């Protein structure tokens, strides 16, 4: 048994911290863990995809189409783009925030307006939360990532106290309080 989590979002949204936290979670729960993401071009506001795999033995560092137990999507369009990763019966946890990609900004293409409908039509087990608003409530839009982790926490085998400890360890010391608040907002959403 193991757990495959795909994190998707837009460069700059803080998916890196989320993958660090989940990697540490993997190391606490399982014998083996691998985290894979591609640096470079994707940091400049492009699509970002991170794979987190955990289990008794993890061979490949990547998660492919039809293999994800959970897709943690930081942005609505990226959630839809990541749908193929989800295995049958998998969960999609998504932030309803929209960030327009350049082809939409420049008017060359339109942002799909019916993303949640498409996902629902495909019978995806989906939890949609406005994580940006919750992050703002917690104190800064920058902690969308910890809100998302709060949402994810309910689907894991780690207790809430263990999660809080994990968040404390992984975020910069000065931001512990605000991140714990953001986590609570996500956890209770």
């Amino acid at each position, binding site marked *: 048994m193991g757990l495959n989590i795909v994190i998707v979002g837009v460069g700059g949204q803080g998916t890196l911290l989320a993958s660090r936290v989940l990697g540490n979670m993997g190391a606490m729960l399982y014998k083996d863990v691998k985290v*894979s993401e591609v640096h470079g071009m994707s940091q*400049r506001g*492009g699509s970002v995809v991170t794979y987190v795999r955990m289990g008794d033995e993890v*061979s*490949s*560092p990547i998660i492919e189409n*039809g293999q994800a137990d959970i897709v943690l999507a930081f942005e609505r369009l990226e959630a839809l783009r990541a749908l193929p*990763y989800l295995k049958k019966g998998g969960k999609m946890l998504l932030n309803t925030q929209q960030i327009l990609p350049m082809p939409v900004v420049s008017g*060359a293409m339109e942002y799909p307006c019916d993303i949640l409908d498409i996902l629902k039509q495909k019978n995806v087990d989906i939890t949609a939360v406005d994580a940006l608003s919750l992050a703002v409530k917690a104190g800064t839009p920058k902690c969308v990532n910890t809100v998302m982790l709060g949402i994810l926490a309910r689907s894991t085998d780690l207790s809430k106290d263990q999660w809080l400890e994990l968040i404390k360890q992984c975020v910069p010391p000065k931001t512990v309080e605000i991140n714990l608040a953001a986590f609570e907002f996500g956890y209770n959403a």
Partner: protein
Amino acid sequence: MSQLMIGNQAVALGALDAGVNLISSYPGTPSTEITEFAAKDTTRHIEWAPNEKVAAEVAVGASIGGAKAMCCMKHVGMNVAADPVFTAAYTGVRGALVIVVADDPGMHSSQNEQDSRYYAISSHIPMLEPSDSQECYDYCRLAFKISHEYDTPVFLRLTTRIAHSQSLVERRDADSTDLVPYKKETAKYTMMPAFARPRHDFVIKRMARLGADCNTSGINQMIKGTGKLGIICSGAVFRYAKEAMPEASFLKLGMCHPLPDELIKSFAASVEELIIAEELEPIVENHVRALGIACKGKDIFTLQGEYSTNMIAEALTGKKPEFDTVPALPARPPVLCPGCPHRMVFYTLSRMGLTVMGDIGCYTLGAAAPLSAIDACVCMGASVSMAHGLDRSGAVDPKRTVAVIGDSTFLHSGITGLLNVVYNKGNSTLMILDNSITGMTGHQQNPATGKDVRGDEAPAVDLEQLCRALGVQDVAVVDPFNAKELKECITRAINNPCPSVIIARHPCALIVKAKTTPLKVTDACIGCRRCMGIACPALRFENGKAIVDGSLCVGCGQCASICPKGAIVKQ
């Protein structure tokens, strides 16, 4: 206790624990973090060199002196470093020399998919290839050992997926950093024909010895399965293939050059069907076929991109994964950051309709719509020389052509190109986009930034003086945020019948720490969409008007400077 880390960090720790004395590198994705991680240990000499050739030469010098040296680069950097490396194969080492080269199958952040294993073959240098972070650590340490024992440089080959994937690593006790005392050995280290011929002889014997030893050294592992299939593979592909075909037998190659002929023969004899799975070129496959062994390889696998578990399973079993598909969606390509000082340069060049020779860095993004400013981009430093070629061949009007290069890239390999423009009486215009950092690879220092790899103070080269010293008389400096002055400056330079350099100087938006206020759009907006042309991610168009996204805008004012109605203002 084991720790989760990317392959690059594991390589750095492997080098430190092997007792490395010196590391000299040039940044390049996906290799950059190795040198950055290593630099956290302040007891060793670690540096960013201006390019990979210099880095390799620094490491060669150190290894001849008796030090344990390393240099790290991406695959295309190996092209730059090739000259010293091929001859260092002859000189061998007194200490140790490890050259880390990171390939990029799938071109996540590169301009080609070249396979560095060919360098190992053609330079007669052994090459190790790890398949996870633990092996990055272990093989790096082993590479130093082999280097010293066999008197040879050793390549450590990574791919993006290995360099940037995290897995668990356990460190071992560190080796000493003691130097081997230097000894003058002219015939070994001075490669002129009379001395190089016997060294070539040594190289051939050394490789024969390595080729024999790698059958039994344990670096290549035979894993017996229960099925009929046998798969030879290395690196990330081993991890994919193991997951795709758990019943198969494996010959996992930890050393991808030289190859273990005896092991390959006995492995092939032990299986009913032999498969060679390797990303990029059919190097192992050709070797196996040359041994007279039948196998399947590129007849069922591709030459392009990264492999994966699903892809290998499908090729070998026909099994296709099940998943939901989605309709065609707008792509989300990387873009220049909000506040990026390159933006106005590309907007202006595009509006002026000039032919633009581009270069390697963030500013390659100036090629994307709607800026669409760049005509060609080949390799580090090529913009300067390509513009000269366009100019002198008569192919295009030099008054309509500019070359564009970043500060770090100019220092890497643009200087000689500019010298050539002057020497051969060229007339081209070079724009150095000086954002005071090596941006694309994640903000590394370079000889123009005034800081070294650890952020400590260092001498900064004066780009204006450097260009003048090369013989360029027309050198101008402009702030690209000043759109009007920028355009005037470009117009004057392209019309000037001699080589011109424009240094467009403004620090990278990501290193500016000053607090900024986002802009807003007033009712004066007439919906002309001109501001959309600068491709700023903080600007969008809704219901016939421009809107500023306050969470992204850094208030740089580049959009405001081109608004015909003055409708974009400070909040």
